[in-house]
């Protein structure tokens, strides 16, 4: 997935001179975890790859200012937890500019951030709930290479600030073919597996885990539909609602903190769209409301795994209940 993201940035930079990339170690080093591999050679000389000091607020603050002045910045913030250092320029202000100027001014800006449990053993917090609370901020999170390419192109083309979350367990996974022609839009979920017995909604690492769970469920005769939100904001509640309405049960599988985050917002949007009552039960499978523990066994217990998804899906699916 990492290479698809870098390819999307490289393709966009080749097309549009107003794009620059700033981040710590994005220069000759090639980016943290290879996040800028090859870009220095292509664009470094033109001053379009900028190695930054440890000054996250100013990295994002200057990007907001550059975007208002006509550039299209991409900031590689390394890890999502560092987003907490940038909430004033990025979310409170940068994301309010289009609204506050009545569209006279916009902030086309992409902020990349790695998150999630993974080989790195640290920096796993995704702080998605924090991000989602701010109006005007878009959030994308791919679960595979083609989506990653398409979402990154869409994020760069967007007139709004977009946080682009890169899950560390997916970045350097098995090689995937990338369809660069896919029309991927921000705010559009994708049904990754059709099914009729229940709907599983997920993002990031929870998507492949849910797909694996769905294959196990199929062996037991339960056909789960798996919806990948792909964007947390805007959140494609229509897609989820249609699916859950059809299958009759919804399981939300989430890796990030459970309070006031993606799971809560999903159920709230479903209720808002349905006149206040849902015609299907909702189950949420997510971590307890604590930071992510460090010990490998604790971390594994904290994040929903395939077996837990299978179990929760069986408990949630009316199909199973009927046959019991």
């Amino acid at each position: 997935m990492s290479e698809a993201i870098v390819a999307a940035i490289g393709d966009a930079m080749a097309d549009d001179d107003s794009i620059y990339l700033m981040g710590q170690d994005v220069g000759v080093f090639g980016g943290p975890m290879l996040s800028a591999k090859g870009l220095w050679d292509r664009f470094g000389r033109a001053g379009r790859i900028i190695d930054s000091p440890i000054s996250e607020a100013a990295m994002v603050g200057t990007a907001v200012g550059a975007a208002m002045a006509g550039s299209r910045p991409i900031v590689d913030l390394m890890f999502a937890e560092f987003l907490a250092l940038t909430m004033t320029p990025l979310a409170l202000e940068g994301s309010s500019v289009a609204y506050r100027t009545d569209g006279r001014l916009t902030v086309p800006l992409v902020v990349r951030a790695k998150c999630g449990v993974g080989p790195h053993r640290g920096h796993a917090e995704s702080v998605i709930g924090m991000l989602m609370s701010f109006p005007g901020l878009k959030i994308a999170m791919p679960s595979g290479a083609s989506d990653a390419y398409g979402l990154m192109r869409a994020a760069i083309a967007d007139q709004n600030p977009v946080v682009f979350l890169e899950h560390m367990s997916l970045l350097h996974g098995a090689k995937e073919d990338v369809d660069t022609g896919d029309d991927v839009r921000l705010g559009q979920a994708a049904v990754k597996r059709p099914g009729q017995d229940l709907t599983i909604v997920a993002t990031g690492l929870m998507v492949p885990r849910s797909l694996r769970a769905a294959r196990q469920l199929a062996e037991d005769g339960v056909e789960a539909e798996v919806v990948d939100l792909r964007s947390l904001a805007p959140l494609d509640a229509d897609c989820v609602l249609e699916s859950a309405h059809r299958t009759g049960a919804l399981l939300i599988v989430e890796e990030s903190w459970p309070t006031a985050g993606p799971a809560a917002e999903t159920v709230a949007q479903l209720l808002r769209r349905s006149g206040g009552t849902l015609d299907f039960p909702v189950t949420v499978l997510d971590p307890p409301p604590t930071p992510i523990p460090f010990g490998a066994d604790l971390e594994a217990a904290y994040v929903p795994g395939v077996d837990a998804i299978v179990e929760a899906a069986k408990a949630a699916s009316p199909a199973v209940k009927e046959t019991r």
Partner: protein
Amino acid sequence: MTAIEQDSRLATWWRAMVEARAFDQAMCRHNGHWHEARGEEAVFVGAFAGLRDDDVLAPHFRGACAVSLLRGADPARLAAGVFGTADSPSGGRWRGDICPSPGPRFVGMFSGSLGTSVAYAAGAALSLQRAGGGSLVVSAFGDGTANAGIVAETLNLASMLQLPIVFVCQNNQYATSLRADVAMAGAGIARRAEALGIPSVEVDGNDVTAVFEAREEAAARARAGGGPSLIHALTYRMGGHYMNDPEVYRTSEEVEAWAARDPLARAERALVEAGQLTADEGGEYVEQRLADLEQIVATAKTAQPSARPLPNSAFAESTQLLTESGVR
């Protein structure tokens, strides 16, 4: 021909300061939420006068409307922005006092949080630097704002990238009630900037000529690729922090001593001494502008409310302008 029409530098600046003062004082009378800028006019007029159209202006919130006026803004429309009424440039959506004319060449505040606009200004400078063309940014901030972490980060980044930007610390000696010489530990902002590799200069912030000349020198450096500079302009906030500030934290002697150094009176005296103005002409002109702006602001205050429908999204694509005209 007197200073009222002629375009000697000092005459131009004096008129700009009179305009700033007149708008400011009218707002003091009509708007309980106004932050008076009286006494600081020489800093923002000197720092922002005579720039190129493609330069980016990023004033401190105190004086922001004056800088908009300097750029040719219509005072009636500015006032509408301050009151949030129908003619507000933002349709009433946002505060025109601290964000009068946001655009690709004018930086404002997009929340009530101080400090970030300095980073936005540096970002604009990065954008200009990449575009080439020798344009620059002037970024002003208060003595209190100077202590915000994002300002320190930005000064370092601007120095490291040698951005075309002129920082101006508009030191009115207070952040609300806290004295600058207490809050800013050490020898002051100019020393701080120097330690960051930014050439810095101390100027008398009540002397518009001194401020302008320092700005010109810094601007020449920036346009020539010499990177950022900082001007520390010492001035004084003659009024309270906001309307009805009890001002228990300072003495009336101090306030009076600085009142005697009013930058407008000082410029006017210099014009009189140079024979470009008589005291009577000056007084008359000032009276007239005060009356004119009083009229404009009083009218703006009673304008129709915005009455705009509330959109159901804050995304750019949902704003009227983009919906009407497609992507900008």
